[in-house]
């Protein structure tokens, strides 16, 4: 029994390296007193997570991670740190530090226990046809509601034939189709949510509360 997707030694090394990077920078984020250094470490941690996604053969998610987290959220954090003046005093630890350690250790122990004591179903249970479709590619034949899947290119008929790479190997196209077919509604709602978050953010940031009363007439355009 061979795994559906072989994990090479190099992949394993990359995985542990990316994990060490992620967790190391994350530890700096939660222990560093200087908030600006914490923000830089946070960007490093996000980058490590992005590499982890590539190692897990999720290229599209990895690129999204780097664009959104490393590119946008880290910059937002850096701006926030620079705008807030009294950051020089640093991020002091709160009173309940021991409680924090205890909670983190408990959460970690519970999750690790579950991970190692659950019998996860293995990809070896996949049917041979499914393995080929996931790792080598498949053809969608027909159009409209009448689409069937072939593993080899059908020769010489008038049907529309769409060639797809293996869903695991070329995941970007498959994820794109997944987002606009199966998860169309969720996709639209996410757009609405982002607009709402944007408007809410602008509204909160609009005017200092003191000058709000005097400029009320101008603000209600």
């Amino acid at each position: 029994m061979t795994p559906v997707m072989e994990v090479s030694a190099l992949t394993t090394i990359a995985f542990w390296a990316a994990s060490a990077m992620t967790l190391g920078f994350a530890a700096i984020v939660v222990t560093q007193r200087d908030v600006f250094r914490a923000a830089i470490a946070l960007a490093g941690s996000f980058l490590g997570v992005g590499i982890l996604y590539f190692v897990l053969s999720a290229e599209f998610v990895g690129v999204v991670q780097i664009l959104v987290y490393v590119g946008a959220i880290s910059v937002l954090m850096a701006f926030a740190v620079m705008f807030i003046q009294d950051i020089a005093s640093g991020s002091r630890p709160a009173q309940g530090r021991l409680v924090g350690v205890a909670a983190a250790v408990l959460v970690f122990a519970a999750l690790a226990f579950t991970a190692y004591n659950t019998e996860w179903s293995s990809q070896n249970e996949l049917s041979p046809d499914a393995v080929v479709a996931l790792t080598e590619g498949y053809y969608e034949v027909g159009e409209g509601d009448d689409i069937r899947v072939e593993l080899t290119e059908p020769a010489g008929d008038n049907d529309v034939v769409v060639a797809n790479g293996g869903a695991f190997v070329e995941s970007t196209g498959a994820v794109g189709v997944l987002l606009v077919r199966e998860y169309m509604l969720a996709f639209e709602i996410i757009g609405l949510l982002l607009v709402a978050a944007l408007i809410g953010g602008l509204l909160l940031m609009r005017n200092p509360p003191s000058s709000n009363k005097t400029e009320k007439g101008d603000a209600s355009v």
Partner: protein
Amino acid sequence: MTIENVLLVSAALFAIGAYGVVSRRSLVTVIMSLELMFNGVVIAAVAFSRFTPAAALLSGDPLTAEAIRSALTGHAFAIFVTAVAAGEAALAFALVFAMYRATESVEITDASEMKN
């Protein structure tokens, strides 16, 4: 690299984030720790997509395009969580700024009243 290893890393990142949320006083650091927790969750979603088989591909039914795509549900989940986290971060910082303007402080212990 097995699913247990990846879930272990995901759990460790989540726990580190949880520690940061509980033990830091500055709201900015608390939000950073929240983002770490989001990342831990998404790593688990992608790991399940990578290592466990999609239910629709196990049965003996004929292969359909939907069933093949359902093997990547974890990726779609990851993208939705990322989008929600981005919106959350933007809104959270707007709130932090509003609080900073009102109270000249970003410490969580000073956030006991929501007037102004």
